[in-house]
């Protein structure tokens, strides 16, 4: 690999993560490569259990202790390999360089601490200028205002806020230190549709204003279309298709899994009488098939698919990359 260029913020190479429990070993992430430049937004799409959250937790090194472990690969943030960083330096990265919005906003806030104090904590943890109390409070109010909550409500406790407002608080907390990268794990799944749209619009606006790079994790193409420049489709711990939002969402060439995903989206416009969901289930992550992991469900399955893991092929002259034997010359390599 060439030396990381100046513009690269996050570089993940060949990431493998396993969850080891007494009973079994779950192969949650199996060779993921991601490169994200400053200010860019990447959507990470895939059905439940694909390993999206696991990738995000690996970036922050917050995999559950004792069970979760990166078994192979490197993660570099701003060119620094974080796998070997001491815990203290890792803490400086968390919240300051990379911050994260977790899947469920309703449980992401501490119920016994006021929202204002929780935002203030994020600010104080990475405060280098020695802010005074008053300055911190001002910043808290500013953050709340930014996400559309009246600053006076900073003394309220999480249970006094609606789900959508809690999500805004979580977002303002994540942005409090102007991170270079914001990872949003299913930022809107727990919200109802109208609030979803508001929160998405707000995130888009904040992203543009602050120039924060983002990884938006979702199983919803709509959310990703709304917020992202690039899209990666994940299946069973691998990225099977990657490209610009245009290529993946509107293009004609796709991985069979992506095609299947589109087929499962209910649409008001199309005349289709019924959805065409992908047959079968995602493979058991404790016993993955040896060849292509999608092969058992793939309508275009060839002999080679069940035997040999496909390579990732660059399609056309854009950014589109697909991991599938269909795009190899003859039979793969």
């Amino acid at each position, binding site marked *: 690999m060439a030396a990381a260029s100046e513009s690269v913020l996050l570089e993940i190479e060949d990431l493998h993560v396993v969850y080891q429990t007494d009973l079994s070993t779950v192969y949650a992430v199996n060779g993921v490569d991601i490169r994200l430049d400053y200010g860019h937004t990447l959507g990470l799409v895939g059905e439940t259990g694909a390993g999206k959250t696991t990738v995000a937790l690996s970036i922050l090194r917050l995999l559950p202790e004792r069970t979760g472990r990166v078994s192979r690969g490197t993660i570099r943030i701003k060119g620094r390999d974080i796998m070997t960083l001491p815990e203290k330096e890792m803490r400086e990265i968390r919240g300051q360089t990379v911050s994260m919005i977790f899947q469920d906003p309703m449980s992401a806030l501490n119920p016994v601490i*006021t929202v204002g104090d929780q935002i203030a904590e994020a600010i104080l943890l990475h405060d280098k200028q020695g802010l005074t109390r008053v300055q911190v409070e001002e910043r808290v109010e500013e953050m709340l205002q930014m996400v559309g909550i009246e600053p006076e409500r900073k003394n309220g406790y999480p249970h006094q806020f609606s789900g959508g407002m809690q999500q805004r608080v979580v977002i303002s907390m994540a942005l409090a230190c102007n991170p270079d990268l914001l990872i949003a794990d299913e930022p809107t799944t727990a919200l109802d549709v109208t609030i979803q749209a508001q929160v998405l619009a707000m995130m888009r606006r904040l992203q543009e204003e602050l120039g924060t790079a983002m990884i938006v994790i979702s199983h919803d193409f709509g959310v990703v279309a709304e917020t992202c420049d690039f899209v990666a489709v994940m299946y069973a711990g691998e990225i099977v298709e990657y490209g610009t939002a245009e290529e993946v969402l509107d293009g004609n060439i796709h991985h069979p899994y992506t095609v299947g995903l589109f087929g499962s989206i209910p649409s008001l416009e199309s005349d289709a009488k019924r959805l065409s969901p992908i047959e079968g289930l995602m493979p058991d992550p404790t016993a993955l098939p040896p060849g292509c992991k999608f092969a058992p469900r793939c309508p275009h399955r060839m002999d080679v698919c069940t035997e040999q893991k496909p390579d990732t092929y660059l399609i056309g002259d854009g950014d589109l990359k697909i991991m599938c034997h269909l795009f190899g010359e003859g039979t793969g390599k």
Partner: protein
Amino acid sequence: MYRYVLRRLLLTIPVILGAIFLVFTIMSLTPGDPGTLILGMTADKEDIEALNRELGYDKPFLVRFFNYLADIIFRFDFGDSYRTRTPVFQEIFQRFPNTFYLAVGSMALSSILGISLGILSAVRQYSFIDTFFTVMAMFFAAIPGFWLGLMLMLVFSLRLGWLPSSGVDSWRCFILPTATLSAGGAAGLMRLTRSTMLETIRQDYIRTARAKGASETTVIWKHALKNALLPVITSMGMSFGASLGGAIIIETVFGMPGLGTYIVTSIRQKDVPAVSAATLLLSVLFCLIMLVVDLLYAFLNPRIKARYTS
């Protein structure tokens, strides 16, 4: 907050009245009349009846109950002991401090030990420390208090001669009984704290705190502890009730003149006013402790606090 305190205080009144009624009813159901109890089986029938009449025992049950209640409320009179014929209140008042020190001391000790060891075990889950204290807790929760008391007495008083084995003459006399009484409570609280703490550490908001870049110390002390302690506090009130009950046994083992030994002797001698008054005092004490626990809980839990501060 004042409104809440006041409301809780007012709420204890019916509870205490209920306790008085229960105690009085149960004592009235016990066989024997005060005349016979005081003068003895062999006394003259007429003397016995005269005394019964003097004490109001010939009146119907409810009348007696309201007289008893009125005496307590308006004159702070709990009746005279059948045995010594002196006001029960005085006798109890002399003994009460011993029981109070014992119960409060053991509650403090068991809370401090139980909670801190519980946190330690949870933070170091699966370590040697964790296993060690968990096994110890199981041990102390399982052995009966009187046996532990006797063993401690055997070792520290008889063998080593470090501490007195009975009496209440100095604070040193309280060490063994307090240690004995707190062992069970500490064990229970330790196991509860450990499990609520482990439960709390798994919560999403703990992960949020870590993702903000908070240190492990901050995560434990600022984010986890307060949440983990809420159920522990409720159980502390309960365990105080248990230690009041335990005090009765422990006082007997260590020969301490406290409320416990007083109740035991009074029951043996069918001294109805004494038993009633002592039981009543214990229930009032229990109510007050529960009040403190509730206030503490409300203070720590914003959901409850918010309802009463405005």
